[in-house]
């Protein structure tokens, strides 16, 4: 019997717009000094509050769709998704049902392409906090996050392993950061990951008759581990002659295991219908094209260009394009480096190997460092010999220490010689000369 893991991902990403999705409240739930301060009648679900959609959030969702090679729906709309939960202020979430902003994209990966089923825009919920006050167990609700714009990305079940999922997620994360539309910070929960996992037996036709959803995982590694754990678990269930039961599970990192949360045998009925408070969205080709033109250069494109323009190794390119900022820093340095006859490879290696802090060291300073470190200014033999001589005379104690076997004293003396020569001369030659003079 052979088994094939069938994995899809659902990813939620909070957009970092200035204001919330449907009201003017500040969108900054993670830095709010107090609960329930970024709220208004709309995001609190007060009587009479009406949603007014955030144009920027719609634009950013379309841009992500374009970056993921999706088709953009020229007519889209928002729908109400009904369910009861105390952190859902209106008793329904404004989401998108059958006309999401983006449909049918693809992301290419070395492990295999992953098709994107859809990308849609919705609102986040508030946050529950279970605590004890005056000895009583209570649940408090913070609505600072209520109504924050939230993108949902759903893939087709094209992922075949934990590593494949991780690779997809890293790439997606990189694209989101390139677009600069979200902090996509998993620790804080501005990017949330939910793999849907099942295992196909070799004789199965089509998709397996069940799937396990693992909820709210907050790291790519945990997704990988949870998938690997689940796949092994499903196979052992099949081996025992049973079928895994459809359910929602959680991930316990300490135990390295998933655990059952709730069974999901019946599909929930969310009673979707078009939100009558929000007119349908009609886009023009021209508008979509203008958004496409505004897309930044994306990682794949950048990698191709870097390879062509700078003849760098794939590994080096990967590291340079990890973020737009590093890539930009590199290119700024290369541009300026031409005046110093510095090759792109030299600069790239320096940035990566020295782990340069691009926020602390300007590109100009960086070049200066490289030039200093790699350029040899000629110094005459006499001048060198004179400097060594002077240093030996001036630092008798260090000389004695060295002769007594204290090796670090040599470095000190070398430093003093270099200082006298103002950094001129070939370090290797000076070092050898000094060592010989002391022996």
């Amino acid at each position: 019997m052979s088994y094939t893991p069938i994995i899809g991902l659902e990813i939620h990403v909070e957009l970092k717009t200035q204001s919330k999705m449907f009201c003017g409240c500040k969108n900054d739930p993670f830095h709010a000094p107090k609960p329930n301060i970024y709220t208004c009648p709309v995001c609190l679900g007060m009587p009479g509050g009406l949603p007014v959609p955030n144009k920027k959030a719609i634009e950013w969702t379309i841009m992500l769709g374009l970056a993921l090679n999706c088709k953009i729906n020229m007519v889209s709309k928002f729908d109400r998704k009904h369910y009861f939960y105390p952190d859902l202020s209106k008793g329904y979430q404004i989401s998108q049902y059958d006309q999401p902003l983006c449909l049918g994209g693809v992301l290419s990966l070395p492990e295999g392409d992953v098709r994107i089923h859809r990308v849609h825009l919705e609102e986040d919920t508030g946050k529950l906090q279970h605590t004890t006050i005056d000895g009583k167990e209570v649940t408090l609700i913070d609505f600072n996050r209520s109504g924050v714009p939230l993108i949902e990305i759903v893939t087709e079940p094209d992922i075949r392993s934990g590593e494949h999922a991780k690779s997809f997620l890293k790439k997606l994360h990189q694209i989101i950061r390139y677009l600069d539309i979200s902090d996509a910070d998993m620790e804080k929960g501005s990017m949330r990951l939910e793999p849907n996992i099942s295992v196909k037996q070799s004789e199965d036709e089509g998709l397996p008759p069940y799937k396990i959803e693992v909820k709210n995982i907050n790291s790519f590694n945990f997704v990988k581990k949870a998938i690997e754990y689940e796949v092994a678990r499903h196979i052992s269930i099949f081996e025992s002659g049973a079928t895994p039961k459809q359910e929602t599970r959680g991930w316990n990192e300490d135990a390295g295991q998933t655990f059952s949360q709730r069974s999901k045998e019946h599909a929930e009925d969310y009673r979707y219908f078009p939100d009558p408070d929000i007119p349908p969205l009609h886009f023009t080709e021209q508008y979509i094209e203008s958004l496409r033109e505004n897309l930044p250069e994306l990682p794949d494109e950048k990698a191709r260009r870097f390879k062509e323009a700078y003849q760098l190794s794939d590994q080096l390119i990967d590291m340079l394009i990890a973020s737009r900022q590093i890539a930009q820093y590199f290119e700024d340095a290369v541009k300026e480096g031409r005046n110093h006859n510095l090759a792109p490879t030299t600069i790239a290696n320096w940035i990566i190997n020295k782990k340069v802090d691009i926020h602390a060291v300007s590109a100009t300073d960086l070049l200066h460092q490289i030039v200093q470190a790699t350029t040899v200014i000629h110094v005459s033999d006499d001048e060198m010999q004179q400097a060594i001589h002077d240093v030996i005379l001036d630092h008798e104690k260090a000389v004695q220490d060295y002769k007594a076997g204290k090796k670090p004293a040599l470095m000190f003396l070398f430093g003093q010689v270099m200082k006298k020569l103002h950094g001129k001369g070939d370090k290797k030659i000076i070092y050898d000369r000094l060592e010989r003079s002391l022996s």
Partner: protein
Amino acid sequence: MTLHRLTLTKAIELIKSKEVSVQEVHGEVHAFIREKNPTLNVYLSIDEHSSEKGNPETDLAGVPIAIKDNFLTVGLPTTASSRVLEGFYSPYESTVTKRIKDAGGVVIGKTNLDAWAHGSSTETSDFGTTRNPDNPDYSPGGSSGGSAAAVSADMCIAAIGSETAGSIRIPACWCGCVGLKPTYGRVSRAGVIAMGSSLDCPGPMTKTVEDAAILLRYMAGKDLYDATSSNRKAPDYRSSLQKGVKGMRIGIIYMDHLHMPQEVKEVVINAGKLFASHGAIVDEIKLSQTLEKDKVLSPDYAVAVYTIVQRSEVASNLARYDGIRYGRDRSHFGNEAKRRIMLGTFTLSKGYADKYYIKAQQVRMLYKKNFDQLFSSYDLLISTPSPGYALKVGASEGNPMFGEVVDMLNEPSSLAGNPAISIPCYRDSKTNLSLGLAIIGDHFEEEKVLQAAYLYERETPWNRWIHKVDKI
């Protein structure tokens, strides 16, 4: 003293010319409210200090205005006539009441309605039924029954109501005053407790057509807090009132409906004759059971279409009243709200939404197409909002579809989002009860609707204020 009988137009005029003071007007209205409210049950809350808030130097000159209790107002409680919200004080003001206040109107009190505006009689109110001031054995209609009664009984100078399908027109008709349901999107819904969100329209309920034109001007216009509000600029409706109907094409509709009483038919047809005598081209448009060119689609289907759309939206809109953030929990909902939540939940359920909600929306589009087609050749359509006089108090008992049947003639224009007015067109001397004339316009053509209504009001004896009270 009779200052409470003043129309809005006259009250503003007299206050501006300093013939009377804001305090005098408020004083007399308050005195009359104290006298009448115990028997009529019009107001749920009253601002005893309203006169202090009136500024004569404003457009609306500080006149007292009654507000249906589903508009959120700062300073007075807002309940939607439901125990769920009993004692609820809103932290913010509805756009409509804010605009009225900014224009110098003063909210004198909040008026009774069917709980959550669910009904056509005020009988589903958790705070008792309002009585028809013209004959207290009869219902004022609903859901804006309190506002209509306040106007009709002179317990305010003017009022604001809201309509989903008939909730302004029916009570205005039954109480013998003027009620205008504007085009959907003409007036902001922000801060109005939502009933059927794709249908809800706030509108003026007044003593005269001119009063309605004055209020609408301040109520209408784009609101950044309501994405469905229109960008079109709101005109000064009052300035075009006297243009008349010369050259207009007016169609009479629903007269061949099975349940149209002869008496009502006569007054509507006579209204047509009056318009014709003032230069309009008037003819009768036949009913059709299917969508046909130059015929009006039967309102019979509208009952089902409207019921499904509205209940679906109601079930969704009432989901927020969970008692967690404000108000009381769900056990305080009355029977009518519970019935609507159950039906609306059903019509949106998986496997049923296609059969009910989606089907209803498709038929709704037919009504819209029908009106669009008719308005390509007609300027106005006339009919009646109610095929008869007010019904007796208690008529709705044991009849959960009462409202929908009463509202039937208003549902097509509500579903299509068209503006319409109801003005008095007959008064029975024995019962003291009125019939109403409906004038329906194309989208955003409130001006034409008001012009025709204004002419009718001036040329017939049925408005009880303009022909008498104006001469105070």
